[in-house]
């Protein structure tokens, strides 16, 4: 039987009872729609996480304090709370490690800030003049902290744009004004350019001060919370990382690398960790959505079985005039694939609209990829074949005499 004839027959069978066909494919529509939406949300999230990780710098290596373990003990101080990295470590890295572009130690903590009677609570980053280069930050107004500021321990501050908006109002030039950090007066010397992104880790809601000032007036100690290192290029990352690790192990008098009291992370590691997390998340969401596809498939199978029973006489007649088993099974298989394919198309449109709504109302970027659409088509056709197979076989194996006699 020609394919055009088969399609025509299937189309007329599927459209004969539109309400029933429509209700039956609803399961597939919802399943495909939510899989598409979940994948697009996951992909969007991955894209925005990747770009925000990339926006913190390029060829970046981050050194943070780690577990401070004593051999034989299971007790450890919480990660990041340890005060194992010191200013001297940063200086040693700058002097002894090759192939690095710049080093920027920082000491970060949240403080209460007041200015002109306005209040905010934000991160105060004590750092050095190379920080903007290492962490990809640009200056909008005034200038960043200078080497001289660090040397002198000047009480100057550079505001992130969000902090500036909170304290002085949007668009106001605050340079020359005074803010109080932890009840100590600082003079504002600059504002950084907005980088976008929101929530945790936003570099727009921050105040930068000289590291020496932070250590002297705010912390009263010379430990640092992070050392950012910019490698010369992407190729030298691993080497730089290895050099830093052995240098710090030596400086901290640790012979067993597994007992290191610091962590050296490069941007690639962070990126791959983040994408592993978002991938897992996407797969989880898509699998949950996928369950409704199975339910939808069972719905299709149920309807096809009903159809086969209803059309027993028709099947008998077709066989009597010369249809072979294959002709009958192909006919019913095409009907079920046509149903699921139709469901797939509507589902893709639904998923696309859903992800637009998510972008519009929740502000989460979403991206629909070609592969997810192709996958949706493939999966819906596959469901048609899998769940249509049994009904089609049942139709094909009907005895023509019994079928013709069927009331």
């Amino acid at each position, binding site marked *: *039987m*020609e394919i055009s*004839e088969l399609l025509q027959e299937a189309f*007329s*069978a599927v459209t*004969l009872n539109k309400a029933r066909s429509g209700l039956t494919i609803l399961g597939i529509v919802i399943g495909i729609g939510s899989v598409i939406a979940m994948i697009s949300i996951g992909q969007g999230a991955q894209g925005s996480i990747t770009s925000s990780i990339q926006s913190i710098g390029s060829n970046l290596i981050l050194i943070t304090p780690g577990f401070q373990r004593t051999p034989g003990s299971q007790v450890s101080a919480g990660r990041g709370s340890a005060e194992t990295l010191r200013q001297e470590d940063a200086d040693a890295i700058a002097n002894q490690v090759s192939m690095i572009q710049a080093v920027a130690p920082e000491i970060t903590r949240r403080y209460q800030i007041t200015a002109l009677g306005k209040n905010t609570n934000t991160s105060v980053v004590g750092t050095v003049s190379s920080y903007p280069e290492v962490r990809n930050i640009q200056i909008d107004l005034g200038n960043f902290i200078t080497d001289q500021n660090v040397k002198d321990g000047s009480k100057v501050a550079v505001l992130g744009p969000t902090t500036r908006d909170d304290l002085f109002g949007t668009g106001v030039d605050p340079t020359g004004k005074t803010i109080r950090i932890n009840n100590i007066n600082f003079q504002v010397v600059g504002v950084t350019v907005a980088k976008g992104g929101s929530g945790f880790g936003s570099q727009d809601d921050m105040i930068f001060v000289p590291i020496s000032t932070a250590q002297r007036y705010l912390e009263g100690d010379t430990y640092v919370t992070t050392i950012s290192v910019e490698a010369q290029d992407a190729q030298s990352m691993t080497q730089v990382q290895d050099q830093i690790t052995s240098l710090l192990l030596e400086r901290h008098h640790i012979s067993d690398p597994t007992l290191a009291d610091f962590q050296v992370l490069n941007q690639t590691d962070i990126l791959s960790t983040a994408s592993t997390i978002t991938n897992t998340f996407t797969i989880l969401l898509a699998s949950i959505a996928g369950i409704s596809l199975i339910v939808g498939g069972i719905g299709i199978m149920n309807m096809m079985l009903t159809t086969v029973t209803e059309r027993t*006489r*028709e099947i*008998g*007649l*077709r*066989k*009597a*005039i*010369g*249809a*072979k*088993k*294959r*002709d009958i099974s192909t006919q019913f298989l095409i009907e079920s694939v046509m149903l699921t394919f139709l469901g797939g198309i509507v589902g893709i449109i639904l998923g696309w609209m859903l992800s637009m709504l998510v972008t519009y109302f929740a502000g989460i970027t979403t991206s629909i990829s070609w592969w997810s659409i192709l996958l949706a088509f493939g999966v819906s056709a596959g469901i048609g074949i899998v769940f249509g197979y049994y009904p089609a076989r049942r139709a094909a194996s009907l005895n*023509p*005499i019994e079928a*013709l006699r069927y009331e």
Partner: protein
Amino acid sequence: MIELKGVNKVYKTGDVETWALKDISFKVNDGEFISIMGPSGSGKSTLMHIIGALDTPTSGEYLLDGKDVSKMADDELADIRNDKIGFVFQQFNLLPRITVFRNVMLPLIYAGTPKEAREESARKALISAALPENWWTHHSNQLSGGQMQRVAIARALVNNPTIILADEPTGNLDSKTGEIVLGTFQKLHEQGRTIVLITHELYVAEHAERIIHIVDGQVKSDSKSHPRRKISMKDYKD
């Protein structure tokens, strides 16, 4: 040509054996118009299923155009039906969702005949079955019983079969429409078709040239139809 040699058909339901056909032997030559007549339960339909290659005998031989059909597999039987048999059923068995024209073409679609040839054959068959052309594009469920049976006859004719097998073709029709259908068969017979008509009514059987009488699955008599009833189609015009 149809040739049955000692055909038996036994149905087994549990331990009970039903001998639906017992040692049936007869020949039907090309161009003959015969009736198979008998009371209810005598085995007429069973016989038709075997002649029509819908079923195979339990034992015995059935030769259709010299070919032994009695031991063929399902798909081979489907080919035989498609190629050599045209069925006309009591309940017409048209597909309601598609047009008259498509119904008639259906056997040729399964035969893989190209579109133009298919349409040409369908047109000829519908003309032979005397269905006026203005009905051809109607859906078959919009037709009267007599018209439906003529569509079914056209469908049976379309593949140019060796035999046309009709099982109680007038059973669902009033006597006047029934006569039109019988008249159509007589006309086809005059054109040289082989027709096997199955009925339990002597009146209907007498429209054929030869009547095979079966009772309890056995041939009781096989003789020329006497008197032969002739329908003049001039009496019926739509």
